[in-house]
């Protein structure tokens, strides 16, 4: 017995893994295909089958027959509504391979879930109903498949039994799809005429279609190259490993843990650490079961280097022969995945590899019509829209174009307030500007300038409703600072809009840009050693957080000037509330546009019933 198992285990050891998705229009038979594959490769157990029979009787849509859709639609809401909401992962194996299949939802509103499934796949099985041909949904899914870099598509022309197994129907659809694939740059398409329900051409050739001589679905899946295979065939590209975790169990050991995302590393090999550019060589490749002479793509290892090099999480160790590029601006494709649209200029977290940085989309070059692939002009991206954008980071990252390396070219954007994953992006290329405009390191620096002024530079950021008293308080604070020989400057919302920001209106996007510019100006002034007082409504938390991120911890002092709306409206110094109430001022904060109160301001000033000197004193105490 033991030898049998050992033999089996050895066979099993050499089995490779293939991940694929099924996608296509609703009712094209994705679930039936998976159900059949699982059933016919014995990936389904008896109790699961009997549960499926019971479910079919209750929720099924196939009459007396088993409804395989219920096998993959695992959520109650999915079974009740008869639709697929989220991707389901199922597993089966043959003698040759182990498979993970992700069944992707077809509806447009769940495109982000489809992208989730597609991001890890080697192959996409795109189903088309033989009676309907290539539909809008087929186009959209194929587009996402190509965007996420899936190289191989199996075009399953399904329900051939309903078109009398007619070869001309099949050929027509193949031509239709091939045109789409050419347009999208999908180079490898294998069309298979199929009846998933009856199993025709699924595991073996069908007698119903003697005219078809290509592979069955399973034969194709068992033999198509996976991404791991492709790399082996292409030779050994240069090693790359993002450092995920720094291991310091004691003072004598410094290990760098990570998973190789490309190529291989050999013990003794010359490497470079990015972005610092420091060079060293690999001293040891450590695993729990012993040191390795070589680590390959996909392996999770711990490296030690021959020299003491300062390395932290997010750095990338690369082959010394061919380091990758480092940039802080690049062009990328973005799939927007959140109900709240993309706002250029707003700060988001960008996570790529093991590093998370601040990022802003500086420009949307165009949006791509997901159904026709036409470029369209766009000021924003809404849910499920795809665009080509320029992205700016607050620090330079080592990267590769996504087409060459998914780990070093694929990223997500995270909303700074809600923490939602709002977008997935793929890097196309670096914008050379980043490489050419070096930050000029000056000999006279902020510390020197501040020392001459005998003060600590600060940015005091007053936020609050219009008429809450921001400018009044800032004015008094500045008077007091001047009286005590401090060097100051005031940036006031209204004044800045007369000059620097005169081209901006009051839409959400313009207000974001308004705040961004002022924050940058304030940063330069703080660098000049000044105490800067910014009085801006700055209604959105994410922009204030963006401003905060430009400064070091103690430099930024957020002062929430908290005056009840009713009181601001009653004062109405500038007559703006009256106009807003009359509908003459769209997007007026507090009336027709929200004010997001700070959650953790350095100073929260309740102004009602308090004297201006008392309020100014509170601010001065805070920065003293």
């Amino acid at each position, binding site marked *: 017995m033991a030898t049998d198992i050992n033999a089996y285990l050895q066979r099993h050891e050499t089995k490779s893994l293939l991940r694929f998705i099924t996608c296509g229009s609703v009712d094209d038979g994705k679930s039936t295909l998976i159900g059949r594959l699982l059933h016919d490769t014995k990936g389904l157990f008896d109790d699961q089958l009997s549960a499926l029979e019971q479910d079919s009787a209750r929720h099924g849509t196939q009459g007396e027959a088993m409804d395989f859709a219920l096998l993959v639609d695992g*959520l109650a809401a999915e079974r009740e509504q008869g639709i697929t909401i989220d991707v389901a992962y199922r*597993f089966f194996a043959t003698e040759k391979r182990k498979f993970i299949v992700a069944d992707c939802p077809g509806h447009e509103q769940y495109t982000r879930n489809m992208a989730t499934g597609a991001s*890890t796949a080697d192959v996409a099985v795109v189903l088309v109903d033989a009676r309907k041909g290539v539909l809008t949904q087929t186009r959209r899914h194929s587009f996402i498949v190509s965007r996420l870099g899936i190289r191989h598509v199996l075009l399953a022309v399904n329900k051939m039994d309903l078109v009398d197994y007619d070869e001309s129907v099949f050929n027509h659809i193949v031509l239709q799809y091939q045109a789409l694939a050419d347009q999208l740059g999908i180079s490898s398409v294998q069309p298979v005429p199929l009846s998933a329900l009856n199993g025709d051409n699924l595991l073996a050739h069908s007698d119903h279609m003697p005219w078809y001589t290509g592979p069955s679905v399973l034969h194709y899946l068992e033999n198509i190259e996976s991404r*791991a295979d492709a790399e082996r065939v292409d030779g050994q590209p240069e090693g790359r490993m993002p450092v995920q975790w720094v291991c310091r169990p004691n003072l004598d050991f410094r290990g760098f843990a990570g998973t190789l995302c490309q190529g291989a590393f050999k013990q003794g090999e010359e490497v470079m650490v990015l972005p610092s550019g420091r060079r060293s060589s690999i001293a040891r490749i450590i695993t729990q079961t012993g040191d390795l002479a070589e680590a390959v793509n*996909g392996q999770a290892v711990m490296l030690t280097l021959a020299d003491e090099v300062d390395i932290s999480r997010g750095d990338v160790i690369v082959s010394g022969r061919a380091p990758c590029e480092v940039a802080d601006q690049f062009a990328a494709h973005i799939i927007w995945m959140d109900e709240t649209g993309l706002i250029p200029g707003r700060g988001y977290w960008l996570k790529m590899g093991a590093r998370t940085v601040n990022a802003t989309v500086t420009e949307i070059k165009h949006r791509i019509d997901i159904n026709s692939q036409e470029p369209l002009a766009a000021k924003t991206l809404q849910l499920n829209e795809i665009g080509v954008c320029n992205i700016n980071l607050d620090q330079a990252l080592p990267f590769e174009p996504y087409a060459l390396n998914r780990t070093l070219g694929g990223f997500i954007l995270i909303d700074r307030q809600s*923490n939602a994953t709002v977008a997935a992006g793929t890097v196309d290329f670096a914008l050379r500007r980043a490489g050419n405009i070096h930050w000029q390191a000056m000999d006279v620096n902020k510390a020197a300038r501040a020392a001459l002024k005998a003060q600590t530079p600060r940015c005091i950021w007053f936020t609050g409703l219009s008429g809450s008293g921001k400018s009044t308080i800032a004015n008094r604070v500045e008077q007091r600072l001047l009286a005590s020989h401090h060097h100051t400057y005031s940036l006031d919302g209204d004044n800045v809009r007369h000059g620097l920001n005169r081209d901006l209106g009051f839409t959400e996007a313009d207000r974001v840009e308004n705040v961004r510019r002022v924050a940058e100006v304030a940063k330069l002034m703080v660098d000049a050693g000044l105490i800067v007082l910014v009085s801006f409504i700055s209604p959105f938390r994410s922009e204030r957080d963006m401003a905060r991120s430009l400064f070091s911890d103690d430099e930024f002092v957020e002062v929430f000037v908290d005056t009840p709306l009713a009181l601001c409206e009653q004062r109405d110094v500038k007559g703006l509330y009256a106009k807003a109430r009359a509908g003459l001022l769209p997007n007026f904060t507090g009336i027709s546009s929200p004010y997001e109160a700070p959650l953790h301001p350095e100073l929260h000033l309740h102004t009602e019933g308090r004297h201006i000197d008392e309020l100014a004193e509170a601010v001065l105490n805070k920065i003293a």
Partner: protein
Amino acid sequence: MNALSHLDRLEAESIHIFREVASEFSNPVMLYSIGKDSAVLLHLLAKAFHPAKPPIPLLHVDTTWKFRDMYAFRETVAARYGVNLKVHINPEGLAQGVNPFSHGATVHTDIMKTQALKQALDAGQFDAAIGGARRDEEKSRAKERVFSFRNAQHRWDPKAQRPELWDVYNTRISKGESVRVFPLSNWTELDIWLYIYREKIPVVPLYLAAMRPVVERDGGLIMVDDERMPLREGEVPMMKKVRFRTLGCYPLTGAVESDADTLEAVIAEMLVARTSERQGRMIDHDQSASMEKKKQEGYF
């Protein structure tokens, strides 16, 4: 270049997930349930951080109704792997004497597992909780992300899961919220056994067939593991050669008759198995979509 086998790939993926948790969360914990999946988790945890000791403590949410063999096994673990293992029992449930017999499987599971788990997570203020669930176990698990967001009430919202692209995991949460992390998401039951065999990972002996006292109850074989089990009228414990494919609370876990008393034999049985492991779990059959519902309420 050597090709990585699929077990190698699964191992690497799990290690990557462990390291991501250790790097991005301030107070992670690993749920340890003594079973085979926990055994694999623990083995991978040690691998991920070698030569350092695992920086993530273990937590066992104890219902007090586990098999005696499981408790004995648990005692050996902390020392073997050099980890810190805490045990939590719901004190109110214990005081009220909640048990699977008089309170039923549903109430017992809710109070001693789900509520107890939430108590322990709240008390420890853990921002990430690692569990051994696999997507091949059950249909709602098949839908869950590797990093699965929970709100401050520990609830899962299956209709609004965060997109999860590649292996780039969004670990950002607000205070009070948490993430459940599943490093074994892409493993199957067979993978688990093959890996245990390959890596020689110690497991509770109950997984191997032996003569054990059982009664037939509600279509399953229930082991009479201690004197707390009330026998129904006409029930007489019989000695049968049985083993368990999954281990939970002994009164809720059905045994299967088997001659597989070695790991090799267990794997051989797996290869021809016609039923899923969770068939032996009473709590899954309580109500339609019961796992999804329990998960929404905070169960793992």
